[in-house]
């Protein structure tokens, strides 16, 4: 499992290199494993990419910290779930999915106003690097303010708090009237 912990540590560092390393490490195996399902190889690659992103998100959010299985098993069960639902949807094949845990999207929320999200997304891209980093760590990677303070080297938590408030305010201004 040593290799796993190295990969997991890499994933938690949230660098692009780390996600590519995971992507490369299991791609061939995954495609071989998934070849039994009647999907085109481009589609399998597409699904594999999504599965790696889900794995990456879960690692950031600390959800793999207590992982009992290997990273590979986890990744493959996410991928398999995605394949089966895709197959089920296209009605090409009737498959039982009882044995696979649901992977609900925590971030999906029906009540969210879609157009506002679209303009927030544009606004987010216009923010400075520091704001984008703070907001990404807090809202996407689910890091606590203490962890962000340590990672970004803020000596005072209040400074970080007010910086974060300023970033949100700026984002509000950027999307005002949209």
């Amino acid at each position: 499992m040593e290799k796993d912990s190295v990969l997991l540590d890499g994933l938690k560092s949230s660098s692009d290199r780390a996600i590519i390393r995971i992507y490369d490490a299991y791609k061939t195996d995954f495609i071989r494993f998934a070849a039994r399902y009647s999907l085109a190889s481009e589609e399998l690659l597409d699904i594999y990419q999504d599965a790696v992103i889900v794995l990456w998100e879960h690692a950031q959010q600390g959800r793999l910290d207590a992982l009992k299985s290997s990273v590979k098993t986890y990744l493959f069960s996410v991928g398999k779930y995605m394949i089966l639902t895709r197959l089920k949807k296209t009605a090409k094949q009737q498959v039982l999915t009882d044995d696979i845990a649901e992977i609900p999207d925590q971030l999906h929320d029906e009540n969210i106003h879609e157009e506002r999200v679209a303009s927030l997304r544009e606004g987010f891209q216009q923010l400075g690097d520091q704001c984008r980093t703070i907001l990404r760590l807090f809202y996407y990677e689910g890091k606590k303010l203490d962890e962000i303070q340590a990672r970004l080297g803020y000596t005072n938590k209040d400074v970080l708090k007010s910086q974060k408030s300023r970033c949100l305010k700026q984002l509000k201004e950027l999307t005002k009237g949209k």
Partner: protein
Amino acid sequence: MRHEALITGYFEGTLTAEQQRTFEQLIGADADFAREVEFQREVRQAIALSERARLKQLLRNREQKQHNASPRLRWWIGAAAAVLLVVGGGTWLWLRTSSAPALYAEYFQAYPNTVMPTVRGEPSESTVQAAFQAYDQADYANAEKLFGKLYRDTQEPYSLLYRGVSFLELGRFADADSVLAQYPTDAPLYAYACWYRALALLRLDERKQARGLLEELAQGRTTLGQTAHELLSRL
């Protein structure tokens, strides 16, 4: 901001049972508080969509890079180029001399799904989910129909934008033009509707009209404005 600690705790997942109760009470009783929480939830959603799109692109590029490095693929490219030269020599020359389609090919990139993250596995219960699932899976023929239906049902301007881009992907440029022309000027994402309409017109070789739209866009100080400016200079 009032109750900042409560909101932070909510997003960190560190609220105690008592704080959780206070939080829920405030959501019901304090409109400003509820609005602020809603805003930050939207921020979370927006960042997640941006990040997922960025990571997806990163992995796609990785795949592309590996493909390009594979000798088998290089052979295919060579063969395809040879076929193109022999069979489609005329077309190739035409593409080279008439720059509009070439420019179109260079600048066109499908607009990302910024509205609804589709996670494979979620059943598509509504038209909007089905439409974005089709769009994300590059099933543009279906996406076009579903966004058409969505627009008839809801009049949501974004459905026009995504339907237009689907038409572009299908190579139905005149249809793309007429759908995008309906996009309301005061709706968000109007700039993007303009941009894709300009590309449709460019592909139809309606340069004058395309130029008009690009000039309008180039006045804005957004990244899109800069791209429009760049494209204008090459027309």
